[in-house]
């Protein structure tokens, strides 16, 4: 019995990481209806940036965040204004194709620079430390990851609903033309949204790198987890995305408990079941 409880608790904590994969994806889609196929590869790019920072400066991965977050955010802004804004329009196909191409480019560039050898970010003691709770051992790193996920989502929620920038995001999402009339340059607003999204991606990438080993090819898998968490939770609802991540995480750990080979399959099945029963996700944003 305790083993099942353990699986569920580990799954919930894993869900925090998946929510971090998904949050940026959800934000970008919400603001500019852009489906970013390169999102998973950007997470891996952030993990490698973390690796280089850690090796060059000899710092802890959490300290590396101070460098990787601004770098990724800046890259996001430039990427959006320099490339992705040109793909946005009435047709949804160009952004899909361009971000797919971007995904291939990032993957191969990482392969050239870092080779295909698996890498890991060394978090030191935090990786193995745990606290005993009623017969369970809860890892500090998964717990910290989950806490960070909650803080990030609460932070995004605050930006969206309590700041002028968030007001701009929502206005541009509602009606680009009218927002432009009010003095918001949508190219800039989209740039800020992508910067924010890639800031979150930086956090996700570093936490991923501390949790598991990574190589340039695993981005697509993270993209799928992110997509699934967004869809399970319901589009446009950030707390729903956290719930979606948790459901996905729990399904995976329970699947793995039954048979280690079923981990990914169980997650995909949970996703398909939600999609079949509640096509809009469990907590879709209430339309006005």
């Amino acid at each position: 019995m305790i083993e099942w409880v353990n699986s569920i608790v580990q799954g919930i904590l894993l869900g925090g990481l998946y929510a971090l994969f998904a949050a940026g994806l959800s934000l970008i889609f919400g603001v500019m209806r852009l489906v970013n196929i390169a999102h998973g590869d950007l997470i891996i790019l952030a993990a490698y940036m973390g690796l280089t920072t850690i090796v060059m400066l000899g710092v802890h991965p959490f300290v590396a965040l101070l460098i990787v977050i601004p770098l990724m955010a800046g890259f996001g802004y430039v990427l959006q204004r320099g490339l992705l804004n040109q793909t946005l329009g009435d047709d949804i196909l160009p952004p899909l194709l361009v971000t797919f191409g971007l995904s291939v480019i990032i993957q191969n560039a990482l392969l050239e620079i870092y080779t295909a050898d698996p890498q890991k970010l060394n978090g030191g003691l935090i990786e193995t430390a745990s606290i005993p709770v009623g017969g369970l051992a809860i890892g500090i790193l998964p717990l910290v990851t989950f806490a960070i996920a909650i803080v990030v989502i609460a932070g995004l929620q605050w930006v969206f609903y309590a700041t002028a920038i968030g007001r701009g995001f929502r206005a541009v999402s509602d009606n680009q033309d009218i927002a432009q009339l009010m003095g918001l340059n949508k190219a800039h607003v989209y740039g800020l949204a992508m910067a924010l999204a890639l800031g979150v991606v930086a956090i996700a990438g570093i936490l991923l790198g501390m949790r598991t080993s990574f190589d340039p090819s695993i981005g697509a898998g993270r993209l799928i987890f992110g997509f699934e968490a967004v869809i399970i939770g319901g589009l446009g609802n950030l707390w729903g995305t956290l719930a979606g991540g948790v459901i996905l995480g729990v399904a995976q750990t329970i699947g793995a408990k039954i048979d280690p080979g079923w981990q990914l399959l169980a997650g995909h099945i949970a996703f398909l079941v939600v999609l079949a029963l509640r096509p809009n996700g469990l907590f879709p944003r209430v339309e006005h």
Partner: protein
Amino acid sequence: MSDALLSINSLDAFYDDFQALYDIDMSLELGEVIAIIGANGAGKSTLMRSISGLLRNESGQIAFKGASIGSKRADQVAYMGIALVPEGRQLFPSLSVEENLLLGGTVGRSGPWSLKRIYELFPVLSDRRNQPSTSLSGGQQQMAAIGRALMSNPELILFDEISLGLAPIVIKGIYEALPNIVGEGMTAMIVEQDISKALEVSSRVYCLQEGRVSLTGKVGEVSREDITAAYFGVAA
């Protein structure tokens, strides 16, 4: 023409291959209120979109305070001091009433208009400030749309069909508020299909017909017959 606040010189406007405006000349002095009238499809909204920057044209075709703005983006035009109350209100549904007004203040120009002044002008908006903008009635939405435009403290405000789809009593209320707005020395351009309402508050009128200026003159000097002819394109 050097003292004109806004001058439009031989403006041709296109939607892709379709030409919507032909060789429009217009000028607007500081503090003046003019009416633009015309039937559906005459090009009134295209003119609004061109001035506000939603439709970009050749640079020199539109000048505001002596600067060419014909090819500027809408947000740049907004910073220069032109605000548009768009046809159909077009409030942001995801934003509350107050957030809509605050968004209108994005450009941060200084002037007489503030949240407090807007709420004094339209007290009902103050009562509903935290409600979703979609919960307002049509007339209240129009007040919010006007308030949102005023929040940028524009020097020129464009009203596009502000009576469209509203009950006559509501239209009356909104037009009664107009003198309070333009009384501040603000220059305004009022686009209407409802000719009599537009003429009541304006000093000059331009009539558009099929993308061309078919009549222009001082209100009171142009006859009803002239307007009818210019509006419909038939001799009355």
